[in-house]
């Protein structure tokens, strides 16, 4: 896809380095689901009012 503002070679190299690092780091990650800790298992909805209104429908 043509981008209206193409990336520079330096930016392309930076993107490649980021993705290589991330994918290398996660290569040994577990494949079985792990339970979420209770303190993180909470909603992170950005628009709480919409969610609350929706539940009344």
């Amino acid at each position, binding site marked *: 896809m043509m981008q209206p503002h193409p990336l520079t070679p330096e930016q392309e190299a930076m993107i490649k380095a980021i993705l290589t690092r991330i994918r290398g780091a996660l290569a040994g990650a577990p494949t079985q689901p792990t339970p979420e800790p209770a303190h*993180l298992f909470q909603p992170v909805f950005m628009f709480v009012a919409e969610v609350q209104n929706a539940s009344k429908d």
Partner: protein
Amino acid sequence: MLRKTECMVDQIAALCGGDTTARLLAEAALSRAQVLDGLNAFVALDAVKVLAAADASDARRAVGTTLGPLDGIPIAVKDNYLTRDYPTTACSNALPLEPPGVDATLVARLREAGAVIFGKTNMHEWAYGATNTTSSFGPTCNPHNLSHITGGSSGGSAASVAGGIVTAALGSDTGGSIRIPASACGIYGFKPTYGRASRHGVLPLSWSLDAPGPLAASLDDIAVLLSCLLGEDPGDAATRGSRPFQPVAAFSRTARLVNLTGPGLERSDEVDAAVTAALQSARGCAVETRELPGMRRFFGAWETILHCEATAYHQPRLAAQAVGFSAVTRAHLEAGQYLSAQELLRAQQVRAEFCALLASGLGDWDALVLPTLPVPAPAIDSDWQEFGGRRVSTQDSMTWFCWLGNLAGLPAVTLPCGLSSTGLPIGIMLMGRPGQDETLLQIAKLIDTAVSQAE
């Protein structure tokens, strides 16, 4: 050292005792901001608005109708908080799409407590970096040495406190952006447990990692600020059911501290020596050293979640204003577009593994201990840092330890614990159990007291 010895609680006492006025505090802060203009700490500061708010505070005090504990106290605000009376730019030329003219919840809470909003502070563009050298307003300079960075992304907030312009400021923290500049500038910074401080009106970087919070001149200042800021907010569902900050009595039993080490947690010798000395001198603490395995994988999870959420948030802006971003920030956002849903879910699994390890794999602990930074504040023009046998980019050296607290949502605090051989501050970081922000602050006081007595 540029930091004044005055703390916010001193200012509060002086106001209550009739020894000063809000106008005098505001005038002093404006004067010092002018003197220290070279720090580049502020991106918007309107003296007329500041003095009008100060005069309103004095008028309230004169008739006994003060609003709260912060009435008349000048407090600076990072430029990613929406404010009704200042523009919000996130220090980028790719501008926010959010509507102007409203306050973020935490800014509104400061005003409800009577604070005088003291301008907007410089930051790393969109908080997507930790050096504060990438900003549409130019880099922020460290008050201890103008040729060194403040760290970021709340670098302007840290410089404004460390320079003695204000005694407190608001920042935000996704991988250490409160703690990093606080440590580099020799002040105090507190990242609350995820979900205890409202993100409403704080422009996101990564919504499941972001935590807004205060930087200040003392731990007592931090406690007063948290009392005004924390608690449930209908504008942020993550705060649902969270309680306000309720100060607890001094820590009465021995605090169990786990000093973390291992591959990926290296630090320079002088940083290690300062942190070790602080721990050895603290009374009422039992310190155990434990290795934390899997750092590379856990960091990969943090980085994946960060890039995916940031790119998701910025997608409309990236499509419409790509050239408005700096080259580096745009590259980070573009990278997020190549990460798959499967990779994000894998990262979330690793995140859960990390939280489980901290919850039960390190024994029974009250606080985890690390240096806040592996090195003192680097020079502005330095791209690489060397420590512990590693060569690391300056950007990665800033987030080296701090992202751990964001990945697990833990409360975390940094406090000064010494100076380097070149006179730059060194900080120690404590991370507490989720929701135990009050206890963490009390443990931090044990360390802070020991460090103060040793000076």
